[in-house]
Every structure is written in structure tokens, then in C-alpha cells.
């Protein structure tokens, strides 16, 4: 393992993040605050409680998940797409590193950023609602795993994309709808039976449900299933990354 190379990639990627720290920091804080104003206060005043939890608190896990997933994807996909786009990718290919080390560097940095922003949102939320986290370790584990798996997913998208449109396509067309329909702002049990059934085909439901369980001890699906879902998704992403590594797909001509 060429750890110095992994470190070099990680450092450069993080440097990009810190260069724009104000943006990285302010935009999630503002958008979280807006969510609380719109959902928590305006709608929450009518919904009152979901499963015995105040609506404002109820949406916190979903909000964090929503942000962490989209951040992980966009950070990692952009991070690896950018060198392809400007042509500096040759350097990664000609260096004595293997693809796994490239993945660890890029996806690791993307996951770190996503985690950081997730924690910022958590902190911001504490200003608006009373939060008690029942299972803090489980919460952290879920959060970290989600950051990692969605960064891996973003990495794959970045390798696959041939232009900026494609880079936006999957997050916009697939991920955002799945996340919004995944119970970020409501409990699946609030849906009519048919849509409840449909929801169980949405993998994001399992992630958000598990994450919410870590906060409040209640969930839409059993926690074991949630764990299985996140493990399955991570494994799938790793398998695809491994396949890309074997074949050099969209990397080496």
C-alpha cells in the first residue's frame, strides 16, 4: 500500500474543501435553518408529533441523511471527475499506485467532508429543537457508513461520467427523489398502504429508518434490516469499484 500517495490525494482534496470552508460551512447551516423554519415551524405547528416525537426533532435524522448522501456523492464524483476533465488524470495513472489507493484517497476525503457537514447540521439542529440521542455510537456508525458508501457511489459516478451533465444526472434523477421519498420528512407509516409497499423498494428508507432509530429508538423497518441495507449498499459499491479496477473501465484506453 502506497500510503504516502493516499495521503497526498487526501490532503489535496481536503485542501480544496478548506479553501472554500466558508461556503462549505455556511450553505448547510443556512439550508438546515430554512428546513426548520419551513418544515419544523410552519408544518410542524400543525403536525405536532410523529410517533411521540416532536415533528421538529423527527426530521433531524432525515435532514442529516439527505445532506450527507448528496454531499458524499457530489464531493466524490466531482473530485474524481475534475482531474479527468482537466487532463491531470494521467498523473494518477502513471504513479506507482493502484486503483484502490486512488479510491481510498478520493472517497475518503469526500466522506470526511460529508461527515463534517453532517455534524454541522446536527449542531445547528440543536439550536432549534431539543435533541436526545438514544444510541450515540450507533448514530455515529450509521452516519460514517453512509458517508463512506455514498462517497464510493459518487466516485463510481465520477468515473462513469463523460461530461458535466452526466455528472449531475444520477444525483438529480435517482438519488434526490429516492431520498425525498425515503421518509426524510415523514414516517412511512403515514402513507397509504400501497405507497408503504412501494417505499420498501426504496433502499434509502432503510438507511433513514435505521438512523432515526439511533436517535429515538423507533423505526419504520427493523434495525437489523437497516444494517443489512447499508452493508449491502457498501458491498455493492465496493464490488463495482473492484470491477472498475480490474478492467480499467473508462480509465485506461
Amino acid at each position, binding site marked *: 500500500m502506497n500510503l504516502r500517495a493516499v495521503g497526498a490525494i487526501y490532503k*489535496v482534496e481536503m485542501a480544496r474543501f478548506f479553501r472554500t470552508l466558508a461556503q462549505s460551512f455556511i450553505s448547510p447551516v443556512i439550508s438546515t435553518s430554512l428546513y426548520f423554519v419551513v418544515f419544523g415551524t410552519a408544518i410542524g405547528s400543525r403536525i405536532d408529533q410523529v410517533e411521540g416525537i416532536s415533528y421538529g426533532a423527527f426530521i433531524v435524522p432525515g435532514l442529516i441523511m439527505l445532506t450527507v448522501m448528496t454531499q458524499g456523492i457530489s464531493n466524490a464524483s466531482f473530485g474524481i471527475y475534475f482531474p479527468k476533465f482537466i*487532463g491531470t488524470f*494521467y498523473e494518477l495513472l*502513471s504513479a506507482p499506485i493502484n486503483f484502490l489507493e486512488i479510491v481510498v484517497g478520493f472517497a475518503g476525503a469526500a466522506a470526511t467532508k460529508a461527515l463534517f457537514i453532517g455534524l454541522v447540521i446536527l449542531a445547528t439542529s440543536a439550536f432549534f429543537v431539543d435533541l436526545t440521542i438514544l444510541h450515540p455510537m450507533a448514530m455515529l456508525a450509521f452516519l460514517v457508513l453512509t458517508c463512506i458508501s455514498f462517497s464510493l457511489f459518487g466516485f463510481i459516478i465520477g468515473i462513469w461520467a463523460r461530461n458535466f451533465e452526466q455528472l449531475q444526472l444520477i444525483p438529480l434523477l435517482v438519488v434526490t427523489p429516492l431520498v425525498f421519498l425515503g421518509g426524510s420528512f415523514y414516517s412511512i407509516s403515514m402513507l397509504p398502504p400501497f405507497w408503504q409497499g412501494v417505499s420498501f423498494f426504496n433502499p434509502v428508507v432503510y438507511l433513514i429508518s435505521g438512523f432515526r432509530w439511533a436517535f429515538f429508538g423507533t423505526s419504520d423497518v427493523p434495525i437489523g434490516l437497516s444494517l443489512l441495507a447499508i452493508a449491502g449498499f457498501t458491498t455493492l459499491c465496493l464490488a463495482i469499484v473492484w470491477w472498475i479496477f480490474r478492467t480499467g473501465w473508462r480509465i*485506461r484506453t
Partner: protein
Amino acid sequence: MTTIVEIDDLKKVYDGGFEALKGVSLDIREGEILALLGPNGAGKTTLISTVCGITNATSGSVRVGGHDIVTDFRAARAMIGLVPQEISLEPFETVIRAVRYSRGLFGCKRDDAHIEKVLRDLSLWDKRNAKTMELSGGMKRRVLIAKALSHQPRVLFLDEPTAGVDVELRRDMWKVVAELKASGVTIILTTHYIEEAEAIADRVGVIAKGELLLIEEKTALMARMGRKTLDIELTDPVETIPASLSGYELEIVQDGAALRYSYDTNADRTGITKLLSDLSGAGLQMSDLQTRQSSLEEIFVDLVADNGKEEAA
């Protein structure tokens, strides 16, 4: 002399089915400067990209310092520095950080003294904290060279290092190349400037249409293929070549003030003595004589043209 890069029957067929390398075999000697010449699309960049790990070979093998570039890629690539043909740099990164990053990618420990030396040698030290997008084209190319030298490679590939570089800078670069050679680095460069190959190369290879047409010592090549011309300046200009001299390969130059005689330096007899006596026999008086050896450029153009003819035939 030891061989540092062994290329054996290397073939490359691109996805679209285009055969860019048709079985190239080439031994590069440790410490030499090898210039690869060839027209656009000859396969020079493809050859370099394959050795450096950017392109997968279709068949054949490459060893660098005895390490196979596929099975032992880490050891092989650690020895190589690459300056690509296209200028591509992270625009927002500063020069020094970009160079440090390259060193890190190659798994080397941070070494500020070495980085400083490289940047100074390439006259980039003053620009070390400038963002790469603020540099001129020639400076950017030097940053690419600095990146390639950041990990002290033993083999350096320069893919058209002096394209779009002004004359002065080109000479500076030749100096850098000469210093690298003196420190034992093997250098392979591609170029379209024949005078560049002539000025700095030890050996010259010519590639056209995916084939290595020739590889030879520069001096031997020039001697073997070289033609010389003899310009005979006349005291009284002529308009036509006298009939008595029609047996010679002569042309009128300088508006009739001189006759140019071309001959092969390798021929047993150059025919010069006889020509000169025939000249005075034809009533022409000469005021001066000048010989000129044909350059690599002419050799190169001839060679590639011949190859084209053979293919057409």
C-alpha cells in the same frame, strides 16, 4: 551498456479498431538521450503512454529496469517520470504544492531541498507560490517537467517538451536535459524539431504509422544517410548548365552565380576532382567552394516519404 527499458513487440489497437502500434521493439540504453521523430499520428505518444501505464498494451511486453510494467508496475513506474504532450495542471493549485503532490503520489518522503533545486533549475522558484493558471504556457510546461522530476526518476519521458516554447527557453531546456543526462538519467523525448534531436540526442528513432522505421546513433545515421552538397561559386554567372557538364547532378543556384553539386558521402568516389577539371574545360571559373551536409530533417523527410511510397506500392 545496460538496457534500462526493453520494449518487446508492443502492439496497441485502440477501441475503435485503429492499430496505433504495429509491433514495436526497442531497447533503450541506460543514460542515453533518445529522440523519437515521426509525423503527426505516428504513434509516439501511444508508445510513451503504454510504457508509462496510461494506456493498456494490446500485446507485447515492456520492462523498465527489469520490472514488468504490468506485473510489477509499482517498481517499474517508480523509476519513470513523464512530461505529457498536453499541458494539464490543476488551475487553482500553487506551483510548489503541485510539485509536492506529484512527489507524494510516487510515495516519496517530503523533501523540500530537492523540490527547491528542481524549481530553481527550471527557473520557477520565483513563481513557486503562483497559481498554475497565472503562468504563461512555457512556464506551465516547465511546471510539468518539475512535477515529473519531483520523485527523482531514472527514466524521463518528454513528449514534445519544447512545443510552443521560445528559442531561448528551448536552449535552457536542452541545458536541463544535458544536466539530467550527466546525473545518469535516461531521457526519451519526442519532437518535431529535428534540430532538437540533432542538438541533444545520442540516438534517433523514427516512427511512422505505428512502426519503428529506424533506430540509430545520430552521428552514424547522419554519416550513413547524409548527402553533401558542394556549391561552386562562379566568377561569371551562367544561365544554363553547359552541355559538357550534363552528366553531373548539377543545379543552378544563387541566380546563376553558383552551381550546386550533390553527392553521396558514402560513395567510393565523390566525383569532385573530375567535375572540377570538367568545369574549367567548359570555360567556367570558380571563385569559391562551399560544402554542406544534409540535416537530419532532410533524412527524416526522405525516410518517411519512402515508407509512404512502399505502402502505396
